[in-house]
């Protein structure tokens, strides 16, 4: 026995290189630079090109779809699409067999390739996502649709790529409903408008004969609720996007405003103002039953449900000034959550459920910010002369809001535009619209 022990001891002594313990190095920092990605133009054969050019009057749909993808990725702030002129490999060959060394050479870490073809009348787009450094394929999908739908294919490709590379759902195959504005500040003409998330395919839903405000999507994106001053009676309306039909929500003897859908889409929550007092009500869209949720002589408005429907955040001046409150969805357990300096308004619960976005007014400046649902961790993302009404992207990562400019002494130079900003406070961007715009509301993903 002792002998064996001794032998083991000897072995240990004379096997020195086996005895080092594993060295661990902690990597706690990296760069937050956008990921370099190459979007190779989607290839198509001549016959397809000619046929599609005839139908869409677009020269090369494949490279146009690639441009949609590239533009989306760049605007996300998380990716850096590389300049196509540096690409060494032809797009049709790359789609089958990328030479990873070539793509690594131009510092690309991911590569998107694809092919466009016609299947009878339909457009078929296939794409692949490659990990350049690991030298392998990460994703491959094909989509078939009518040719005029080609931009949407680009958005869906972006969503898939975004999800595969960031680990969270994308927000590109979405639309934004907003209020289009024209004319002088004292007599603005406002219309409901809807467009793709990237500013294309704008359509106007009302003619501008009456004032319309604050449109919001329902969870399936087929209905919109908004405030209209039709016949000078400010009331909450419901618009079915598919049929174009509109109806007044409920028969209230006074102004109803600030509408939003419940997360299940069955109810509309809104403010009803009467005799100088605004309270929050819900109306069930099926049985039309109206429920009073708050009962307080102060102004209670801008209600927004939590994604699970159990809580409501809203705006009230019951403390003397505009602040943000949270309550259970039956109106009990009202708690104030905003305690910073200044006034707080337009609380909106994030789709992830962990944050509430808001507008803050302090010392003559307007801020868009977020806080946790208990009011802690307030972060202000952007400051300006006037901005308000944040709306979340469906993945809860980006906020869209509107910003108005200060006019000069003569009251000139007024404009209202949509802007977007990341939850991080970086990547602030103007969202392109045909006219001036306000009150944006982001749809959920259309392709789910």
């Amino acid at each position, binding site marked *: 026995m002792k002998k064996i022990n001794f032998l083991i001891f000897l072995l240990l002594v004379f096997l020195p290189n086996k005895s080092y313990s594993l060295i661990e190095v902690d990597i706690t920092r990296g760069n937050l630079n956008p990921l370099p990605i190459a979007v190779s133009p989607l290839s198509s054969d001549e016959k397809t090109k000619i046929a599609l050019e005839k139908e869409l009057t677009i020269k090369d749909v494949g490279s146009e779809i690639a441009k949609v993808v590239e533009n989306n990725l760049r605007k996300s702030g998380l990716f850096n699409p590389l300049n196509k002129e540096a690409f060494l490999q032809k797009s049709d060959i790359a789609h089958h067999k990328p030479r990873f060394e070539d793509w690594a050479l131009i510092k690309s870490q991911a590569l998107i390739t694809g092919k466009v073809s016609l299947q009878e009348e339909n457009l078929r787009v296939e794409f692949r996502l490659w990990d350049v450094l690991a030298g392998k394929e990460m994703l491959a999908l094909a989509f078939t649709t009518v040719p005029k739908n080609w931009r949407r294919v680009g958005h869906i490709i972006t969503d898939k790529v975004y999800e595969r590379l960031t680990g969270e759902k994308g927000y590109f195959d979405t639309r934004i409903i907003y209020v289009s504005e024209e004319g*002088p*500040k*004292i*007599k*603005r003409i406002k219309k409901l408008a809807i467009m793709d998330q990237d500013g294309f395919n704008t359509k106007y839903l009302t003619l501008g004969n009456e*004032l319309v*405000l*604050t449109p919001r999507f329902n969870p399936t994106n087929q209905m919109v609720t908004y*405030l209209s001053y039709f016949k*000078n009676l*400010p009331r909450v309306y419901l618009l079915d996007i598919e049929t174009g039909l509109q109806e007044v929500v409920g028969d209230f003897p*006074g*102004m109803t*405003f*600030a509408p939003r859908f419940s997360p299940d889409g069955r109810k509309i929550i809104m*403010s009803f*103002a009467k*005799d*100088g*007092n*605004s309270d929050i009500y819900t109306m069930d869209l099926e049985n039309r039953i109206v429920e009073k949720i708050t009962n307080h002589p102060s*102004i209670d*408005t*801008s209600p927004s449900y939590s994604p699970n429907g159990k809580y409501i955040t809203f*705006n009230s*001046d019951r403390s003397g*000034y*505009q602040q943000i409150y949270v309550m259970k969805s039956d109106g009990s357990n009202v708690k104030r959550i905003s305690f910073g300096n200044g*006034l707080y*308004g*337009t609380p909106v619960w994030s789709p992830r459920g962990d944050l509430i976005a808001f*507008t803050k*007014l302090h010392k*003559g400046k307007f801020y868009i910010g977020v806080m946790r649902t208990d009011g802690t961790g307030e972060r202000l993302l952007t400051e300006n*002369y*006037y901005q*308000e*009404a944040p709306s979340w992207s469906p993945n809860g990562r980006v906020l869209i809001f509107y910003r*108005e400019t*200060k*006019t*000069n*002494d*003569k*009251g*000139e130079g*007024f404009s209202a535009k949509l802007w977007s900003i990341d939850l991080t406070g970086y990547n602030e961007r103007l969202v392109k619209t045909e006219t001036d715009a306000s*009150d944006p509301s982001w749809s959920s993903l259309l392709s789910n």
Partner: protein
Amino acid sequence: MNLFKIYKNTLLVVILAFALSACAQQQKSATIDSQIKDDVFIGTDTVEYLAKGVPDRVFFATNESVLTTRSRETLRKQATWLRANSSVTVVLEGHADERGTREYNLALGERRANAAKDYLMTYGVSSDRISVISYGKERPVDSGSNPLSWSKNRRSVTVKAN
């Protein structure tokens, strides 16, 4: 000699310009002071009349819906006129300035118009004759982005409905 004259004239012009600009500066702040008292507009700009000596609107302080002494005086005149013209019905239009969120401002405008309505009612105008509408910040009368413009926009306007 000629050169001297040019020099002298230029100097004169510069001095005069300075003097004038100082004057303008003073005048401007003076007008603001004389038109706003305790954050409430007290001027006559933008004010229209329902009848001779009966102003159509009252003004409010920021985020407030409390009637000032001056506003109550205006509303008493309106009440007297309405009692004398019993066939007239009115709409009270409540407004807010641009320095607030849209939805809150809609509620605030409604509250302001109702403050005026309540006062008219206590002076004998039947509530059947008064309807109320809030435009929030949607219909400013002054498109400026300064305290004077905002004060003119924080208002409740009595409009003849028939």
